């Protein structure tokens, strides 16, 4: 296995947030003495990512995903722990570090709001000091791949969200970084834009070998793109594995009886819902045995077995997480 490109060990980050009691009296009191609340955003996170991986980073809101991305991008300093990206400590070696990575934040554009897209690109060329010939080659390729021809002369503020995301993706890759961080790249995108984004990122990963770490709430993103998933909640990694690891052994079995049927105790225990002849079971494992016992006992009209929707499994994982209240006084 290749030497890891990104190494994170026991990364922790807490923020101090000034607190104020409500009302006028609270405002006066906070003038005299400020009270602070410590919020732990990351609580000893460790992982390693090898060159060329495309990793999905998931977790509920406030789990610590963006904090991790910000630390890896060098714009936030952790409270404890180690972090190396391509051999560099991101925050200590910020200027050299950010020159070698691309970052897209889905919630905000990094283009210049009032400038036509092409001028933002030109400015990035100067900022990242990309040599003119190389810049034109890379830019033209990105423009073609992301179909930006018609958008180049439009000021960024006039772009739709999907168009803006395509432009932001291009902007983050003009200097040909080996590493790409995407923070919620699919947020708010329509189906077509989402597909375009996915295909482009996958292509970039496959053909250029760009290492990608992306956060998302969209499980379809993860299923479609990522060979590896990390799940974080309350600042702690709960799972680091493949998309299949996210799926539990459990299966959903939908049965349609041929006429009225009385369920046996063993079967009734697995019942989820019943509507007339149509019965839904959730089977924890050994689904083949279950199917055999059902077909042996009842007369069936139809039977289907399916995975649980990945969203449900993930929601369950989120809730099962040890509720170590993320806040310390």
């Amino acid at each position: 296995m290749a030497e890891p490109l990104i190494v994170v060990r026991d990364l922790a980050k807490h923020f101090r947030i000034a607190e104020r009691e409500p009302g006028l009296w609270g405002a006066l009191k906070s003038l005299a003495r400020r009270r602070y609340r410590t919020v732990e955003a990351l609580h000893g996170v460790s992982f390693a990512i090898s060159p060329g991986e495309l990793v999905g980073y998931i977790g509920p809101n406030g789990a610590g995903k963006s904090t991790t991305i910000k630390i890896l991008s060098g714009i936030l300093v952790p409270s404890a722990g180690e972090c190396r990206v391509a051999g560099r400590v991101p925050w200590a070696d910020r200027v050299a570090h950010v020159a070698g990575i691309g970052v897209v934040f889905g919630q905000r554009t990094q283009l210049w709001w009032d400038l036509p897209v092409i001028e933002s690109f030109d400015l990035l060329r100067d900022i990242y000091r990309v040599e003119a010939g190389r810049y034109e080659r890379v830019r033209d390729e990105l423009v073609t791949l992301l179909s930006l021809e018609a958008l180049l002369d439009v000021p960024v503020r006039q772009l739709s969200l999907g168009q803006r995301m395509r432009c932001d993706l291009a902007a983050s890759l003009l200097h040909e970084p080996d590493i790409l961080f995407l923070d919620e790249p699919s947020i708010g995108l329509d189906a077509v834009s989402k597909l375009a984004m996915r295909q482009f990122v996958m292509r970039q990963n496959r053909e250029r070998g760009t290492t990608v770490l992306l956060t998302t709430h969209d499980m379809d993103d993860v299923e479609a793109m990522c060979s590896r998933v990390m799940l974080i909640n309350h600042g702690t990694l709960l799972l680091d594995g493949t998309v299949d690891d996210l799926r539990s052994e459990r299966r959903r079995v939908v049965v349609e009886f041929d006429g009225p049927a009385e369920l046996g105790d063993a079967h009734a225990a697995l019942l989820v819902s019943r509507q007339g002849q149509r019965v839904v079971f959730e089977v924890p494992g050994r689904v083949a045995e279950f199917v055999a016992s059902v077909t042996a006992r009842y007369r069936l009209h139809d039977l289907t077995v399916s995975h649980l929707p990945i969203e449900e499994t993930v929601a369950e994982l989120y809730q099962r997480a040890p509720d170590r209240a993320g806040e310390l006084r």
Partner: protein
Amino acid sequence: MSDHAHWRAYLAIVTVRCRMLLQYRAAAIAGFGTQLFWGFIKVMVFVAFYASAVSEPPMTFTEVLVYIWLGQALLALLPWNVDAEIATQIRTGSVAYELLRPLDLYRFWFARTLAFRLAPTTLRMLPMLAFTFLLLPVTPLADWALPPPASVMSGLMFVVSVVATLFLSAAFTMIMHVTLIWTVSGEGINRMMPGIVPVLAGLIVPLPLFPEWLQGFLYWQPFRGMADVPFRIYSGHIPADAALAEIGLQWGWVAVLIAFGIWLLDRARHRLVVQGG
């Protein structure tokens, strides 16, 4: 990769930001009207003042005319407000994302600040100079027109001095920008500075007209280099051969303010990277 090779990036930022700010032409035209009006009021005040002066004032009326009209033309150059865009970035916390650029944060902001001072000044200066220097002399108010520089040398030195003024003003604006990281809202600064800066720069009353006992203090403060120095070089009140020393002093203040700004930003940046803006 040396730092010096970055100059292109910073220059590109200045250019782009200037072009963006030059779009606000309507504001400049409105500003021109107001500034012209106030210019005439000031001129009339000094006409009355000089007509009833009992002793010889420390400046001739011509020197005062230069002071007033250049003051009106270069008003936007004074560091009396903060860049709304930078203020918004700090308020919303998005300033942290500036650190994603492979640029030195001070220089990056300095480039933007330079443009923020340069573009509005250019927009307001050109019509004001055209009106007071070219148009007024052919009207009945010719006596109140902006006179030409005292000499060719004075004119050249004036241009050199105004360049220093631009950097001085940008360096001070940078300090204002950095303090925003602590105060978050730009309101306080935007209300306080218009009361202090124009007085100390000489825009309310020309500095040489202040009482004798204040002259020592007025000489050794940075705001003088933002108006008084270039204006008096133009009018010859500061003779051309003494101008270089004054310009040197301007650049000295530039160096001091930049050094202080860098130090301040270094401390403020700690806040950004620790609290995430």
